[in-house]
């Protein structure tokens, strides 16, 4: 693992990289085979981690829980399609999409020997809406009005209103299946139906799982004999661990030191553009943001490409104020570009009856890494359009309670949601608590309700394209960029042609999907 950083070394490494990329397609097509032990250095670990999936919020537990020990009903495959995990198939029971019938996989057992059945589904779902439960998936499960066992391996869920994306929502990492009647035990010891059963779990330190013999995913996934996850929250330590070969893969590399990793021929950097996006939401019911012309002026006074280049160092993609990302099914590729154009911005200001504009923009790196720098870049480019942005640097502590949703214009981030309706109903629907722009548009709201019920894909695309156009042209949030998930792995590992882009590390399923080359 020795390498030097001299010019010759870099050239040699570069040559090796070219060579590696030439043989890479063959490697990718190589048949996966069983064997090997995967060691992952993962950030996002906390001493508060447990097997209660309702509380999970960061990568370490996403990978350990949904990605290794537990299963959901449905799964978003690496290519973005929805496939069954513990549900074998599902179908709408009505034209409005408010009844969903799930046929469960047969012959699945939990790690303690209990058979998986419909009662487990019902009890696991009820966990999220139980009295006093603090579940991040409550808004999903709350939509269900009745749950019925309609067959030995069938569950019928009736929703309060139609929701075409409901099966996709059930792939959420919070909604994993626990054994009925022993949920407490399962949350304490980690008893699921996943490919790996818990050997050791030390919150905030380490997780070791061993491959279950005879699993329903045999032949499709689960190639490693074991998965070991080591909690490394420090970015430099993660990189060192990968460079010295103590782990095979790490998440979230520090883009500042990316060149060091690139110089090493034994390491592959893999990145995907998902739905994660950084935003500057403004309250559209407060002056001056209540004037659509002011919003348009602001949309044209930001240089989006510069943001991607300087804040994300190229690891991202320009967004035209669209909260729907490339990982969504109905992402609108053909939105009219919002270019940096001071003259256009001045024109819209004039339309609003102004010659110049003075506004405060509250930012803190709690919103996203580089938020303050991004606000200052914005300030510099907006000046040419006679817009004076006063960047107010806020404290990181209490940012989400005191600044976001409170100050007229602030910085924010969203990790994105797997369905369009879910993104919109979280932050853009009329009256929801996280509507951070107080967005209130009659046509948008009408389309939102239409799209939710629509099970026809073509009609859905039409509806969501119109909604994305509306929000891009008139909406109150500036979304300059989608931020990539940038991870790195040893070339000893191999993976399929597609990489999941819903979360980091192949949608947190590296342990299931990857294998030893």
């Amino acid at each position, binding site marked *: *693992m020795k390498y030097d950083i001299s010019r010759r070394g870099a050239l040699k490494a570069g040559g090796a990289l070219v060579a590696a990329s030439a043989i890479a397609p063959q490697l990718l097509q190589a048949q996966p085979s069983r064997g090997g032990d995967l060691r992952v250095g993962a950030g996002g670990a906390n*001493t*508060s981690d447990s097997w209660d999936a309702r509380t999970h919020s960061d990568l370490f537990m996403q990978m350990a829980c949904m990605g290794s020990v537990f299963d959901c009903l449905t799964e978003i495959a690496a290519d973005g399609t929805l496939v069954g995990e513990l549900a074998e198939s599902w179908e709408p029971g009505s034209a409005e999409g408010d009844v969903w019938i799930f046929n469960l996989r047969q012959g699945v057992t939990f790690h303690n020997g209990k058979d998986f059945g419909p009662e487990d589904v019902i009890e696991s779902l009820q*966990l999220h809406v139980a009295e*006093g439960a603090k579940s991040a998936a409550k808004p999903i499960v709350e939509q269900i009005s009745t749950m019925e066992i309609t067959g030995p391996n069938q569950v019928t869920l009736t929703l309060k209103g139609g929701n075409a994306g409901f099966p996709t929502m059930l792939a959420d990492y919070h909604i994993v299946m626990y054994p009925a009647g022993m949920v407490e035990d399962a*949350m304490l010891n980690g008893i699921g139906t996943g490919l790996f059963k818990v050997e050791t779990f030390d919150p905030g330190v380490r997780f070791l799982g061993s491959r279950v013999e005879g699993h329903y995913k045999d032949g499709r996934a689960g190639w490693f004999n074991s998965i070991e996850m080591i*909690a490394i929250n420090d970015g430099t330590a993660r990189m060192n661990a990968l460079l*010295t070969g103590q782990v095979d893969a790490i998440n979230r590399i520090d883009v500042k030191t990316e060149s060091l990793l690139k110089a090493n021929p034994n390491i592959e950097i893999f990145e995907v553009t998902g739905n994660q996006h950084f935003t500057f939401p403004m309250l559209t019911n407060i002056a001056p943001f209540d004037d659509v012309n002011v919003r348009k002026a602001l949309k044209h006074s930001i240089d989006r490409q510069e943001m991607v280049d300087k804040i994300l160092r190229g690891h991202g993609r320009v967004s035209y104020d669209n909260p729907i990302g490339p990982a969504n099914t109905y992402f609108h590729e053909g939105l009219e570009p919002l270019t940096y154009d001071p003259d256009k911005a001045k024109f819209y200001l004039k339309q609003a009856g102004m010659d110049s504009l003075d506004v405060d923009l509250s930012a803190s790196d709690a919103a996203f890494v580089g938020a303050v720098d991004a606000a200052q870049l914005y300030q510099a480019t907006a000046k040419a359009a006679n817009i004076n942005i006063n960047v107010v640097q806020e404290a990181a502590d209490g940012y989400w309670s005191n600044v976001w949703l409170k100050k007229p214009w602030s910085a924010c981030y969203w990790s994105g949601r797997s369905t369009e309706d879910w993104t919109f109903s979280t932050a853009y629907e009329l009256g929801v608590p996280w509507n951070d722009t107080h967005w209130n548009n009659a046509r948008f709201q009408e389309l939102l309700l239409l799209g939710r019920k629509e099970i026809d894909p073509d009609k859905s695309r039409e509806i969501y394209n119109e909604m994305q156009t509306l929000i891009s042209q008139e909406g109150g949030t500036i979304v300059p960029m989608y931020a990539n998930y940038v991870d790195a792995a040893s070339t000893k590992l191999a993976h399929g042609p597609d990489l999941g882009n819903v979360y980091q590390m192949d949608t947190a399923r590296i342990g299931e999907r990857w294998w030893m080359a």
Partner: protein
Amino acid sequence: MSSIFGIILRRIVLGVLTLFVVSLLIFASVNMLPGDFAQAILGQGATPEAVESIREDLGLNKHPVQRYLDWLGGIIQGDFGVSFAQANFAEYGGTSVELGGIASVADQLAPRFKNTMFLAGVSAAISVPLSVMLGILAALYSNSVFDRAINISTLSSISSPEFFLAYILILFLAVLNPIFPSLSNVYEGMTFWEKLDRTMLPALTLTLIVTAHMMRMTRAAIINLMASPYIEMARLKGTAPLMIIIRHALPNSLAPIINVIALNLAYLITGVVVVEVVFVYPGIGQLFVDSVKVRDIPIVQACCLIFAASYILLNLLADIMTILSNPRLRHPK
């Protein structure tokens, strides 16, 4: 002999008193931290109602004096309380689950404390003999090139920030020459030698940091005595220079050396925060950082208390050893 016990007893009482004052300081300063556990854990979802409900659950709404007394009362009975981070979410459908022991602060701290002690032990085993030896040699060849070289190298290592030393060691001993692992994740079930291998780099980093202080004190204490008449006598009777130092100078200069060693041993326990984070060593320092991040107050307080207690304890030990090594203090007039 009884006077020694009197002195020791007095020191212990003073130590306990100090610890009490420290507990007050810890509680006050932890409570002055901006933001609280409820806000930290909820992040973007920190709506006023959610924050209020978690505060209610954890008793954060009580008066600070009441909370301090509850906490102190618990500690006196050996109960460090329940970790917020584990307790809050071990909830199942509104009713509290029978916790599997992970939630109590003591249970979370115990394995981490063991690891930190192991690291401190390894570092002490390397650094104490090394620095005393270097100190003696530096005194023996004082003002020579050897003396200067040792002084410069130890002083520059103590003056560098810990993380910098750590990265230098990683670069040379893990990346360029893979001798030791850069990742020190020790865990239950490893053999002693595996653990030792993993602990080597953090232990070496700590050694570099504490050596200068001990070595300089050894050197200074010995050189200080070298001008005394009894040393001159020894020299006149023809004793070899090294023997003079070991047989005549060292025993008389033990008191200050022991004092400095004890102080540095305390540093090996309390100063490990940065080193543990850089090497991902699962000790108290790392737990401390993780807990501060989520405002897990009971753990933060317990960590502070452990740091304070080990400092006080080792100082106490230093005092006692000084008294024992100095007959004049042993028999006060």
